[in-house]
């Protein structure tokens, strides 16, 4: 077993640099204006290569969640959760919910980014948005 590692391609580096500044940026297509995740060389929707790095709001909605009961990484002793969050800008990211947990289903809960240290790197987690409530599943 080892510790968790990032995948950092040529296109991921600017995103991780922005995360270390606690304001995550993603590529926004200069043509169709869509945000893409993971970062890449081209817009999969319109095939334009021109883009701008834009900060994301850090606001999103939980689509699904899991709880790990088995250990896979030295730096992630179970139990711990992982959540799939659809950002307001469109892309789905995986993160960890910290702080209060919704009662019952987590699906549909409004969350926002917080940044924290994990294994020597800065990365995002999410917490329930103030007043976000936990609306019912779609």
């Amino acid at each position, binding site marked *: 077993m080892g510790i968790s590692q990032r995948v950092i391609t040529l296109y991921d580096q600017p995103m991780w640099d922005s995360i270390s500044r606690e304001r995550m940026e993603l590529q926004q297509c200069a043509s169709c204006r869509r945000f893409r995740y*993971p970062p890449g060389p081209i817009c999969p929707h319109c095939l334009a290569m021109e883009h701008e790095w834009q900060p994301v709001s850090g606001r999103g909605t939980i689509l699904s969640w899991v709880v790990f009961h088995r250990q896979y990484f030295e730096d992630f002793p179970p139990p711990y959760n*992982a959540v799939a969050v659809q950002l307001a800008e469109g892309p789905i990211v995986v993160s960890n919910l910290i702080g209060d947990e919704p009662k019952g289903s987590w699906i549909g809960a409004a969350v926002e980014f917080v940044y924290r240290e994990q294994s020597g790197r800065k990365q995002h987690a999410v917490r329930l948005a103030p007043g976000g409530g936990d609306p019912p599943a779609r």
Partner: protein
Amino acid sequence: MPNGKLSKVASVVGVGHSDFVADHARVRGGEKPHDSYGYAAVAFRAALADAGIDRSEIDGLIVGPTTAYERVGEILGLNVRWGGQADAMLSVIEACMAIESGLAEVVALVYGNDQRSAAVNYGGPDAQGAAAFLSYVYHAPWGFTSQGALYAMMWRRFMAVRGMTEADLGEVAVAQRLAASRNPNALMRKRITIEEYLASHYVCEPLHLFDYCLINDGGVALIIAEASRARKMSARAVPIHGVARCDVNEGATSLEPRLIDFYLPAQQKAAEQVFAMAGIGPRDVSALQVYDSFSVHIPLALEGYGYCGIGESGHFMREHGISLAKGLPVNTSGGHLSESYMQGWAHQVEAVRQVRGECGERQVPDCRFVHYSSDVAGKAVSIMYGR
């Protein structure tokens, strides 16, 4: 759109596999009976004997992803005029394509995997499959790893959107254990109940231990021949009536095909093609074999291939049934959950044996068509075996 060019151009004339049960016992006892090449060799000999043909008749070779093509050809002494490397489902389709195009007439499909004795990891820092699927490793900084976790995330949302329960999914593990209890080649033959399923521990919640495939060593091989030559070779040749494939790649790493679409668009397109090519519909299918690295694949396939309506898989599994005892028999060998984890290869063998009527206690009565489906990472593949 769908065409019938590959329908019945080729037939399976021989199937074989290693001794899953004996090898697993030896591996658990600390021995290493074979490596991947050795398991592949054992399976090839068995398939050749089952076909009743001489090795010299083989002019095509496809090997699985876990062994090198040239080395398998070398150890089996096979010089061929066409060859390649593919997973279980695509190797069957590629064999049909090679035969239809005239590049080969008798193709050996050979797979061996020593994943258990070699301690292959499917999660964590060295997760297998990372080179092919970025989603297997991209979310590791958040501790999100293993293919099981990907299906746990998918199942959690599917369960909520479809109004299903954990007990509904338990129907899969229970039905496949029933099948395995009637299969002497199966590793896990003790029957379980829904209550035992629900009481089993979580690995990645909401998936329980019994939702996960086994990890064991083994090998599987098939011999596929041009249809008219197959009829001369064997009275038990099983024609391939249809094949189909539809891949969803867009958004794969950010999990959109899993969490938004539940693979449905890919499966529906594959279903349209395979049923049209075979000239049948879901009601004509006697048994369904589904790639079941996790039990979640079964409700996805039932809805995706039209065995039940969208949103009806929970009711279908519970009320209609998916076992040898009731309803549509699914994974009649016990599948990856209870027979052997041969990454879809042993499912082809089971499909062929069911059509031949050789399955003894677990034989599906009057078995005419067996549909094989896989949807690994949203790549939907179907093969229709029939009489």
